[in-house]
């Protein structure tokens, strides 16, 4: 069964263990700047929000890649960067409207969340269940609810009539 990362900002304490776990899992270093998941801080509201690739159906990054370096993992549904094929042109980093594909200056390639092949380190590391790894269809309603109102997709769809 396909699983998804569930992110609940209200439960996030900003401890950044997800960032450390992600960078350790994927880059073998404790370096939040190399993490594929990032926690954003809202001082004004006293809130934190973890955020990473939504593995969106549109897959803007994948379609914009000129050399077929981003592919879909059939088992997890994740859009993955094949590092050996990526030339580092960065077109995907501007094509992704969620800002979740980043350029890694050290390797000259791009990095994005690949769901750790189906066992995301961030979800394992999160002590407050702000990040959980759950059945995708079981929580489909939550997903719809969370995104229905104001996501990029829904706004895009409404432009057909108005723009």
């Amino acid at each position: 069964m396909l699983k998804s990362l569930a992110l609940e900002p209200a439960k996030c304490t900003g401890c950044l263990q997800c960032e450390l776990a992600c960078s350790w899992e994927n880059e073998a270093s404790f370096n939040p700047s190399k993490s594929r998941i990032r926690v954003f801080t809202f001082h004004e509201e006293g809130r934190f929000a973890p955020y990473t690739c939504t593995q969106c159906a549109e897959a803007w990054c994948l379609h914009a890649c000129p050399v077929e370096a981003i592919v879909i993992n059939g088992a997890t549904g994740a859009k993955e960067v094949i590092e050996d094929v990526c030339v580092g042109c960065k077109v995907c980093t501007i094509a992704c409207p969620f800002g979740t594909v980043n350029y890694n200056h050290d390797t000259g390639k791009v990095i994005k969340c690949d769901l750790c092949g189906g066992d995301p380190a961030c979800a394992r590391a999160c002590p407050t269940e702000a990040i959980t790894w759950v059945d995708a269809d079981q929580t489909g309603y939550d997903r719809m609810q969370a995104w229905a109102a104001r996501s990029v997709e829904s706004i895009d769809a409404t432009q057909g009539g108005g723009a």
Partner: protein
Amino acid sequence: MRHLIIGAGPAGVIAAEHLRETDPQAGILLIGDEPEPPYSRMALPYYLTGNIDERGTHLRKSADHFDRLGIELRTGTRVTAIEPADKHVRLEDGREEAYDRLLLATGSSPATPPIPGIEQEGVTPCWTLEQGRAIASGARPDSPVVLLGAGFIGSIVLEALARRGVELHVVEMGDRMVPRMMNETAGGLLKEWCEKKGVKVHVSTRATAIQSGRNGHRLAVELEGGEVLDADLVITATGVRPNTGLLEGSGVQVDQGILIDRNMQTSVEGIYAAGDVAQGRDFSTGEYSVQAIQPTAAEHGRLAALNMAGRNVPHQGTLNMNVLDTLGLISSSFGLWQGVEGGDHAELLNRPRYRYVNLQFEEDRLVGGTCLGLTEHIGVLHGLIQSRLPLGVWKERLMQDPTRLMEAYLACTQSLSACKVLH
């Protein structure tokens, strides 16, 4: 139903794939005039630096990709005329190929600047794989190379040439680098950066003649004002022009590029256009222009295919955007980076660190932006502009600190308290 696609670049290839997906029974013929398998011009600079081999430039990596999809690919084949009355195209060898729907994805070609001596050997654009091979063998370390044009493509080629260790001079007519992608501040910073890295950048000038060389070099480039630059190789990057030549007499209307409607159809029914050759709808202005960028080619290809297969999917317009890596300084620009009448803007400049962010607003919506030295989460600029998201209180916060783009996006799209976001 038989779909015929002229042009095997990104727009043509993506269209063919989407046609197959949408119309499983249709015949699909994809014709390209270069002898190579479909490849990406964007990848050529990485081929020049030795980062990838030729295969690394290919748009699709598996040898049987097109066969497997039932797409007939014919490379090294030139279409010379389109005859819509008979619904066929004519090939160079005189044969005809019939179509029900035709896609023109013929791309663009480098403009040849009107400079005496430009036709000489040793003067070349960096546009095709064949030219890339020639440049790779000619641009040896320490040999003098003159690059004409520091626009977007010129600046990408600049990176590759500089990394090959040539002694590089760049000549740009505008008063700064990438004048059509960035303002004076950003373009000026980019020039300073390149000069610091050892590239000689000549702005507000032009080459007036290319002569045969002296001092043991093949060529000599004379600039306005009299300066003469030695060169073993002259690379031209002075803009591209849509390939519309084969449309003569076809009735397909051409302005800057091929005119298309919101369904990607040209003035002739059953004939569509996509990519660099198409004058498509611009998201920001609602007007029709030639963008000639990779993400637009991809989007055009997808939409043209859907409409050719009978779906009515109108084009919302593509956002003009670019990203550039110039010797390690990464810059990007999005949408109406020049701003709009009566709009506000936020600017952050750290000159010693070559860091610059410029955001352009219309009321409380983001309409454009430029980043220099900032790579983290820059795609969200695209998202904020294309969603026309009202920023509310976050406009003021971005005016104070333009780097808080992700925070603005998250705060405006998700309730930070109760909602659960599933990824």
